[in-house]
């Protein structure tokens, strides 16, 4: 694996926003910031696996925030990532019900910045649930939807990648898959409830 390119904060944000060389940007985030997150999480009772999971979620939340144009650039990337990691680990601890002292220590260190971060990165729980729902979708549907909506491939390009006869077959399959996924989301009481609240 090559050494990641070095980015300034501004270059990193641009690389992520343009979604070009995203792998290189992710690798840079790992090489530059993963260790400090590990030390932080491990000093608050997590093990290395916890720390790496938290950092992975942190990177996802950061990229998502940037690509949606919600990253405000008031703090450095380092500070932002540290706040996101802290926020995620705090929620994780709450979920695991490791109550008591450790949580109280966290509570007392939660500040305005944490609240801002929480607003910027959105609902972590909902994102996890969306991923779980997507995971339940059949493999052919996952592939076709990922190629179209994540890799941004055209119907023609997808036809070359998958064993479908022509573009129309791919298009019909994509309709079905997206409807199936939508149906599964509708059937999820938590997400459906949140959406209904928003619409009201």
């Amino acid at each position: 694996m090559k050494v990641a390119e070095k980015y300034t904060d501004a270059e990193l944000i641009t690389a992520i926003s343009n979604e070009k060389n995203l792998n290189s940007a992710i690798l840079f985030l790992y090489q530059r910031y993963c260790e400090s997150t590990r030390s932080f999480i491990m000093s608050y009772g997590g093990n290395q696996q916890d720390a790496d999971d938290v950092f992975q979620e942190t990177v996802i939340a950061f990229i998502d925030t940037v690509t949606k144009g919600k990253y405000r650039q008031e703090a450095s990337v380092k500070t932002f990532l540290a706040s996101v990691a802290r926020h995620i680990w705090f929620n994780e601890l709450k979920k695991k019900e490791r109550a008591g002292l450790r949580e109280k220590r966290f509570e007392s260190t939660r500040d305005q910045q944490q609240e801002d971060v929480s607003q910027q990165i959105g609902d972590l729980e909902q994102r996890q649930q969306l991923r779980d729902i997507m995971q339940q979708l059949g493999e052919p549907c996952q592939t076709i939807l990922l190629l179209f909506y994540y890799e941004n491939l055209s119907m023609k390009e997808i036809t070359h990648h998958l064993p479908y006869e022509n573009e129309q077959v791919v298009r019909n399959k994509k309709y079905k898959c997206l409807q199936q996924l939508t149906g599964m989301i509708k059937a999820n009481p938590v997400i459906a409830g949140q959406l209904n609240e928003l619409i009201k």
Partner: protein
Amino acid sequence: MSLQHTHALIDHLDKTLTDTPGQPSSEESAAMQRLISEDEDIAKEWNYLHLAVEAVREKGLFEQVAAIRTQWEARTASQEEGEGIAMTQETPADEKPAGGALRNLYRNTMRVAVCILLFAAGATIFRYVRLSSSSLYNAYYSSYELNTSRDASITDPIEQAYIEKNWPEVLTRFSTTKERNNKIDFLVGMASLELKKFDDAIAHFEQVMATNSTSHTDYFEDEAEYYLAIAWLATSKVNEAMPILERIKSNKDHLYYQKVSKMSFTDLRLVQYKENK
């Protein structure tokens, strides 16, 4: 909400996702947008569709970050290992340095080694770019010849059509027959594979294996297992194919052991890495 409406909504969604922001919308798009803002049900469906796309993108990003994480963890682990080896190989302070001739020999050897390494890296990169599940499928797929000595005479119409390599006829006859056994399922799976109906082929091979599993038999088990792995490769699911191929490779009694042993597992792993990226 009608299917037609849903499809129109999906088309509109795809269009809004690919349109450049600020670009003037077409009349059709404007009409659809009005419909969304005026009809509560359509608005609801519209939001769910957005959420579905969000789910897809979440999953895509998660997989991309997970792949980099795996690479990074492997790299840090190998670096730590390397540092460990370097520590144990450090020259003691009082050891005499090697002579000039020896140093030159060492340098030349290192140059040759670097050249070989660069060449090997180049070849690997070339192979990596060229490789895909489909290319492996093309390389490893060979038709299944029905061994007629299994049964003395061919009376089964499906078998007859299979021997004549009339693949569509195999499927047609299967759709009209009530009889079903492992041999029929396997042949229909093979005919589907020949017609590139990979999902159907997978379903038939899995049926053979499921029947064997419940009835504790092994009729056409090895054949179905091998061609199931090949069908997974055809559908770019190298992750599904790998465990099957590894199982076959570790079983010398398997009918397809020789064939699988000749496969390049390095290529398979490269494709696995590439497609999990």
